[in-house]
């Protein structure tokens, strides 16, 4: 049972983690992540890098769709804009990596205002279609604008040294991603517990009441799109750096669906949920393929030959099952489990 939970002043009530002991657990998690390259084989570390990049993207999408309630099926578009911005900044203009990552965020955020403006009038399904159209237009634009993006033949992205630190190894990519993911998670958690985050949740739940509280709906909807796209653009830049070769195949519709699946599975509006969802959705297709291949024969060859189809089916199944049985997502399960153990032995089922 957790004890010593009394607060003595108002500052303590507004802290990020309510209990001192929580910090120890997060410090432990961080220590494990930092020492990961020394403990596991490279392919596992590379896999964790993928999960962390997905988590950054999911945290970004979660701001606009989970917290502010504006459905976006177009986040593959922002991911693409971020990836290509970083790619062009590094390969064409020789920018250092941090500058390229920031540029990816800002260009993506600026582009989001194009989608944000219709979001002021459109809701639900209509907004979903508009954002979907946006991401398709982005992919076409990238393919057509060959001089800038390399068009359909793609674009190599280097990983130049930064301040004398070589960035070419998988370990340095892992650390870069870990730092960005850490900053994203911390920044988003802070944002969501302060004035701006509360305003987003308020306009999702009841927009008329929100405006009576002094929330400028136009401004905060655009802001939700901008911040969300900034983070997604940053995730895109990490993708570019990670795969080191860009073409538009990485930004098809399925990527937007994948992102939506992550935040639904994780729990809309929850940062922890977005991370859990990103982990599950990243691992699940590979895991299923592995399981199918165990059966050998026909199933095995289906598994190895139809990656995209298997992904699609799995996302559809997972989204439906979660919406039906656990609409609050993994974050809710997490809280229940945590409460069980922190109340133990007095916990009720």
């Amino acid at each position, binding site marked *: 049972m957790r004890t010593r939970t009394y607060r003595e002043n*108002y500052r303590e009530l*507004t802290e990020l983690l309510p209990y001192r002991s929580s910090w120890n657990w997060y410090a432990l998690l961080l220590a494990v992540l930092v020492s990961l390259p020394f403990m596991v084989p490279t392919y596992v570390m590379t896999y964790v890098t993928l999960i962390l990049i997905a988590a950054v993207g999911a945290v970004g999408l979660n701001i606009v769709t989970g917290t502010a309630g504006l459905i976006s099926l177009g986040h593959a578009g922002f991911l693409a804009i971020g990836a290509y911005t970083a790619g062009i900044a590094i390969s064409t203009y020789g920018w250092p990596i941090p500058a390229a990552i920031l540029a990816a965020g800002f260009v993506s955020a600026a582009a989001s205002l194009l989608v944000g403006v219709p979001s002021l009038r459109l809701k639900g399904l209509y907004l979903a279609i508009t954002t979907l159209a946006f991401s398709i237009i982005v992919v076409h634009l990238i393919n057509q604008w060959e001089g800038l993006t390399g068009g359909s033949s793609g674009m190599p992205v280097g990983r130049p040294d930064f301040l004398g630190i070589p960035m070419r190894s998988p370990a340095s990519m892992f650390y870069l991603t870990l730092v960005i993911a850490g900053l994203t998670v911390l920044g988003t958690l802070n944002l969501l517990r302060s004035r701006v985050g509360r305003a987003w949740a308020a306009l999702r739940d009841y927009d008329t009441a929100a405006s009576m*509280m*002094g929330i400028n709906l136009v401004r905060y909807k655009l802001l939700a799109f901008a911040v969300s796209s900034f983070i997604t653009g940053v995730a895109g830049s990490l993708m570019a750096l990670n795969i080191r070769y860009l073409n538009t195949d990485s930004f098809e519709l399925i990527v937007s669906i994948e992102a939506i699946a992550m935040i639904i599975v994780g729990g809309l509006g929850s940062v922890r949920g977005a991370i859990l969802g990103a982990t599950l959705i990243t691992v699940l297709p590979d895991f299923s393929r592995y399981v199918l291949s165990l059966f050998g024969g026909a199933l095995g060859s289906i598994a190895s030959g139809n990656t995209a189809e298997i992904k699609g089916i799995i996302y559809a199944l997972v989204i439906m099952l979660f919406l039906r049985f656990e609409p609050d997502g993994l974050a809710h399960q997490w809280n229940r489990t945590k409460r069980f153990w922190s109340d133990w032995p007095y916990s009720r089922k």
Partner: protein
Amino acid sequence: MKAPTPILSIRDLSKRFGGVQALSGVTVDIRQNEIASFIGPNGAGKTTIFNMICRIYDPTSGTISFNGKDLLRHRPHHLAGLGIGRTFQNLALFRHGTVVENLLVGMHAHLKSGVLDGALFLGRTAREEAQAREEVERIIEFLEIEEIRNQPVAMLPYGLQKRVELGRALATRPKLLLLDEMVSGMNQEETEDIARFVLDLRDELNMTVIMIEHDMNVVLDISDTVHVLNFGVPIASGTPAEVAGNPTVIEAYLGAAHA
């Protein structure tokens, strides 16, 4: 105690929705520090007046001024900053949040932190959040809802949700508070609590309160002035005693036979 200049001045206010004349020619002055009530049968146009004060609707004609300022030049999200707070006829809480979170949203107009401040959560923002939390705690104490402060509002019984909504309106630090059918659906005890809170708000915090109310006991007991509407037309104004004895009002409420 009563100041001569009105805090809210409504002149010739009319509203037409398509072919329906929801409100015609309403002229009302609300004095500083009074409790005023709008009464009238359903569809009399009471909530329409609130929605025009709150800038959700534009009037077809007429003017509204608040403390001498033309309210019609403002947008809904300016009202909290100007000092007008309101509760809604049907519950309009932010249902995913806890009581504390709902009240903190109410403080939005009086806090400053932007995206970067929030993401960094350094000195100024942390101080602002702690102060906001303290103010919210005072409202919680005033409304006697300490036990439920960390509960999600969607889980609360109706009467308490209404009380939280009152708290959220108070968090906007209103000079003028608009209460739309605050006690409807409440039991006797809950109703008496609300009446006591409204009197305290007026007497101790110097607020001006306008109520839309169907509960005649509350209206007649705590109002200083009562304005009666029928089918969008003002039919009487005065003290509770004057209005209660007015034959036109009795006719509107009970039918011609009783007049």
